[in-house]
């Protein structure tokens, strides 16, 4: 369901994000302008400290730019209040994290239900049925009642994807989704994200260190020192090889913090 509307999914104009680190002012994002159309699948790459995580936080409405404008599905989110940002996260975004970030005490089903609990308007029955549908979509029909510790890393990450999907958002943001996974699980997760993009028409943005993951997307945007240094289309997106030894070293996240 590739959208035919002309409204971009993401439109950043001259976005700057500054942090005060001691007496030093650090520009994590330095005049970034970027447009992502609905239905795109984009990889954001770059070394640690390049600003890609800050970009992800901004796109995820967890952080607001110091200056510049950010339109999400045509709505200006740069000036929204904390509550409005929470609403936006709830309704328009799905997050996939490097370390899955599942609630350890809850079952897969319950974890996937979580976003619905914060958005209101769902009965307990609706929530469970939506969560089951999302888990079915990521191929975990047999894991509804398993807790995170009872599942493999790949399965946990698929629960994470199901959670991102459960409210059927247009945009999926994945931050190093394969960072903690072995090659086989990485390939499965990337395939899953590709299929969400290809089949379900979701806009998918993946932050990654892994060149193979990046090559599996349709467009690669490279960051360095808070600026875009490369923005290219991938001519022939390739499914990651399951046999190849893929470097899955986690992003050390030594990035500038507030």
């Amino acid at each position, binding site marked *: 369901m590739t959208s035919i509307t002309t409204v971009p999914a993401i439109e950043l104009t001259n976005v700057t994000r500054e942090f005060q680190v001691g007496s030093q002012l650090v520009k994590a994002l330095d005049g970034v302008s970027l447009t992502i159309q609905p239905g795109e699948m984009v990889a954001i790459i770059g070394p640690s400290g390049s600003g890609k995580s800050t970009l992800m936080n901004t796109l995820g409405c*967890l952080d607001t730019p110091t200056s510049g404008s950010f339109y999400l599905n045509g709505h200006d989110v740069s000036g929204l209040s*904390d*509550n409005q940002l*929470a609403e936006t996260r709830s309704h328009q975004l799905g997050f996939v994290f490097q370390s899955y*970030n*599942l609630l350890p005490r*809850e079952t897969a089903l319950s974890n996937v239900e979580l976003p619905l609990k914060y958005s*209101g308007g769902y009965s307990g029955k609706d929530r469970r049925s939506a969560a089951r549908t999302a888990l079915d979509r990521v191929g975990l029909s047999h894991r509804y009642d398993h807790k995170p510790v009872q599942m493999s890393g790949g399965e946990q990450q698929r629960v994470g994807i199901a959670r991102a999907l459960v409210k059927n958002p247009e945009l999926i943001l994945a931050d190093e989704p394969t960072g903690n996974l072995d090659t086989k699980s990485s390939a499965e997760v990337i395939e899953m994200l590709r299929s969400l993009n290809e089949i379900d028409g979701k806009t998918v943005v993946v932050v990654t260190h892994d060149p193979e993951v990046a090559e599996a997307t349709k467009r690669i945007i490279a960051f360095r020192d808070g600026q875009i240094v490369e923005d290219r289309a991938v001519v022939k997106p390739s499914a990651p090889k399951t046999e190849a030894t893929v470097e899955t070293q986690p992003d050390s996240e030594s990035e500038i913090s507030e």
Partner: protein
Amino acid sequence: MNFGILFATALGSVGANKLRAGLTLLGIVIGVSSVIAMMAVGRGAQVSVTSRISDLGTDLITVRPGNQALRFAFFGGGGNSDVLSFEDALALKDAVFTPDVRLVAPENSFSGSAVVGGENTFVSGVGVTAEYIDARNLTIASGRNISNADVQNTALVAVLGSQISESLFGNRDPVGATAKISGRQFTIVGVLESQQGTIFNPDNSVLVPITTAHYRVNGGKGLLDSIAVSSINILATSEKTVESARASIATVLRLRHELTADDDDDFLITTQQDTIETLEGTQGTFVILLGSIAGISLLVGGIGVMNIMLVSVTERTREIGIRRAVGAKRRDILFQFVTEAVLMTFGGGVLGVLAGWAIAYFGNGATVDGDIIETVIETHIAVIALAVSVAVGLFFGIYPAVRAASLNPIEALRHE
């Protein structure tokens, strides 16, 4: 996030660490149960004192000699203790001047020992007239009362309190027997029914004619009319006429004692209502004191809750980040943590009410140092204690919850 989900989430979080929740709860349980138990004991004491006084009859008025101002000045000093005479007492039963007085019973007192064979016991002797037992609401268990003829004849007859009778005669009926009381040989003519549990316990008393007490035991002199009485017991015609009886008694005594308008009363009139009010006042302070001590333990319990909630917020920083990332608002996080705190304190409150109730229930009638503890369980105290435990949860839960809600989601997600 609606309340049902909020409640289920909070319950899940509290239940996830049962030992910790239980220990935290325990502080509240102890606080609330001690409030309930303490208040039950305090109120029990209050109610039992009041009922014992009421048992004597709410129409009882007591007149004692002594100047009220002097009493205060000398901290209970008796003032002029010879100021009430037998004649004063007789004058208080007058159809014209004191129409509201139904009965007058003067008394005086002595103390000494009573001996029967080898048995020896201390007695508190009361010199009385025939009216005394009615005024004091006493009953003759066996034999007869002191009669007015006994008073006229300065007879050496005595009515024994049940405890005295038992120590001197065991289970035998002492009526007709003799006993040496304060050195005089008395014939026992009656025994009083036990009044155990009433405030003026007559079980250790010996009643003798007032004249006998004055002339033959205390070695007093003078005419009958002039003999001193230590107190006059008066019954009003009804509970409603107590105040007017009090006024007319004061008028008659002031006239008889030739007091001018500038003089203070040289006697003190006490009604049962006065006594009840005074005692209830004292007991009220006692109840508040007990309640405050128990309240402090509730406060300590509350601090325990706050402590655990702060630890919990730190431990669950990442969880908070996850919830925020998937759409939780600050207030969702705030409510979740406040609900957890309130859930713990309310749970503790419920258990505390049950425990306090059990303590009060099973403690009722227990004896401590010879005193019977009575407890009165009041529903409104339980409701208040529950409300306070919820308030404690809110109060001590707010700060940790605000800290949880104000965490930056990005930082929280990065938290290990």
